[in-house]
């Protein structure tokens, strides 16, 4: 798939801007702070309905404006669709496809798929476990939008359950007990069931995804890092409790996982009440990244960490590509972070993608293999160089 036209209204630094795009490579060149990333961020937002740079939507709206609108004409399966999203911070966003409104903006997920490389990716490797969980979940949603629902259901179960654990735990500690504490305990079982059910669904999907990603990450790391072999970069999913043996096939299925999760929740009951938070479930899991025998976090050099982050993104790209339409590839400011050799290798690997969008402050940073259309960005103005 590729975007042929993008229009931004009160999005970030842009009051009203139209950008024409084509298949193949397009580089956005401009000095820092001119608005290069804002353009590609808008396309990524249409795909994921969230930004890679900020967690809330407020900064996406131009200062002083009430809402931002992003419109993109997207060619997929040789048909053009006009996608439109109205970003209303603090209220629900509104989405339209070919001018007709969708009941929920979430239904737009899956219409556009992007894989974005950015300097923030280093956090995938060096950051908290939550970064890696989000990486997996984002990928799940891109492949099957249904998981957006599973994920938000799980978050909600957690919030409800934690709030209940806090009240019940506090009542237990004060020793007063009383009917409120009893009532809280009696409903805890209900939330356990829901935690186990949605948690197992998310967990099963993540386990299957990691199995698919493993060989692709090894292959991508070998391609990016000099002198590496494909068995160098490995990863392992570490759940917050001991996984049950699979009954058939390589992975335990959802029902088995739900049962195990439920048993573990009951076993940790007292702990959970003491601390007032849910201690078991996919929200406490970790994705371990390893280079040879050593964990990447804490042991790998800066360059190796970067290569690993790139390998994770490249593997996602391969995976999405295998599942149908080519995703749009976005390389946001990554070349400045890489040495010449890795630049060339990365460029080679992505040059044949259907659409590649590159941002760079210095034109010379963009490897020759990615010489495509040039767009100059200065003072919030976007102009084609050719």
């Amino acid at each position, binding site marked *: 798939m590729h975007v042929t036209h993008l229009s931004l209204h009160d999005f970030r630094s842009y009051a009203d801007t139209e950008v024409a795009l084509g298949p193949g490579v397009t580089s956005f060149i401009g000095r820092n702070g001119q608005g290069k990333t804002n353009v590609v961020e808008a396309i990524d937002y249409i795909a994921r309905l969230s930004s890679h740079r900020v967690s809330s939507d407020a900064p996406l709206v131009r200062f002083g404006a009430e809402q931002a609108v992003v419109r993109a004409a997207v060619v997929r399966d040789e048909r053009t669709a006009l996608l439109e999203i109205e970003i209303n911070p603090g209220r629900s966003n509104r989405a339209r496809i070919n001018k007709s409104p969708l*009941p*929920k903006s*979430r*239904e737009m997920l899956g219409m556009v798929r992007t894989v974005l490389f950015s300097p923030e990716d280093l956090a995938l490797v060096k950051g908290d476990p939550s970064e890696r969980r989000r990486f997996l979940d984002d990928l799940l949603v891109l492949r*099957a*939008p*249904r998981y957006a*629902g599973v994920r938000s*259901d799980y978050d*909600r*179960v957690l*919030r*409800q*359950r934690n*709030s*209940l654990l806090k*009240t019940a735990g506090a009542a237990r500690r004060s020793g007063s007990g009383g*009917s*409120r504490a009893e*009532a*809280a305990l*009696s*409903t805890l*079982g*209900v*939330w356990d*069931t*829901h935690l186990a059910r949605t948690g197992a669904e998310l967990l099963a999907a993540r386990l299957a995804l990691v199995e698919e990603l493993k060989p692709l990450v090894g292959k991508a790391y070998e391609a990016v890092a000099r002198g590496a072999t494909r068995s160098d970069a490995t990863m392992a999913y570490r759940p917050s409790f001991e996984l049950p043996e699979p009954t058939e096939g390589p992975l335990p299925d959802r029902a088995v996982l739900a049962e195990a999760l439920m048993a573990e929740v009951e076993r940790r009951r007292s702990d959970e009440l003491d601390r007032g938070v849910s201690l078991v479930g996919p929200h406490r899991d970790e994705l371990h990244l390893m280079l040879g025998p050593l964990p990447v976090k804490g042991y790998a050099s800066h360059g190796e960490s970067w290569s690993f982050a790139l390998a994770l993104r490249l593997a996602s790209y391969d995976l999405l590509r295998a599942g149908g339409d080519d995703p749009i590839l976005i390389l946001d400011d990554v070349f400045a972070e890489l040495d010449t050799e890795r630049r060339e290798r990365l460029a080679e690997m992505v040059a044949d993608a259907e659409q590649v969008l590159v941002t760079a402050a210095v034109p010379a940073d963009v490897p020759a293999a990615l010489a495509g259309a040039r767009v100059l960005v200065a003072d919030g103005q976007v102009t084609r160089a050719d």
Partner: protein
Amino acid sequence: MYEGVVQDLIDELGRLPGVGPKSAQRIAFHILQADPVDVRRLAEVLIVVKDKVKFCSVCGNVAEDELCRICRDQRRDPAVICVVEESKDVVAIERTREFRGRYHVLGGAISPIEGVGPDDLRIRELMTRLADGVVTEVILATDPNLEGEATATYLTRLLRPMGLRVTRLASGLPVGGDLEYADEVTLGRAFEGRRSVDD
């Protein structure tokens, strides 16, 4: 900011559900320009509704007397009770004219975040109603969202041991809709709850 009483009116209206500051302002100015007779009628209804309307002592539905219209109606089947969250759900189900049993209004759903537990809902009253053994089936018609499902799970655990028939409303595809327009969650649920076609 407007002066004195106009701003008071806007503030009060803005507290109503679904009314934001802009709508509150529009309603306030509509009231200012409206016929004084109309406004007086609205004000009187507001006061009367608070004085006169009570909640049915049996089912918890809104009523003007001790009992609501449905609980008074002898033709309704006393053996089946449909449990809903709010009075407005009763109205919605009544519109179908399919259900001839009686209702029980819980007054909300279990939600620890909002501090709503089983004790804050009319669950004890429900258990009292079931004690005499007249009721044989309880239909759980709480909302198909997370809190509604949790409430249904809680009630199921409470009611099953009593030997009652406990049913839950089906969730699935809207009638008259197109399959292609259904969202994934609804469609997924419909798949899970599919049934064999009996002839």
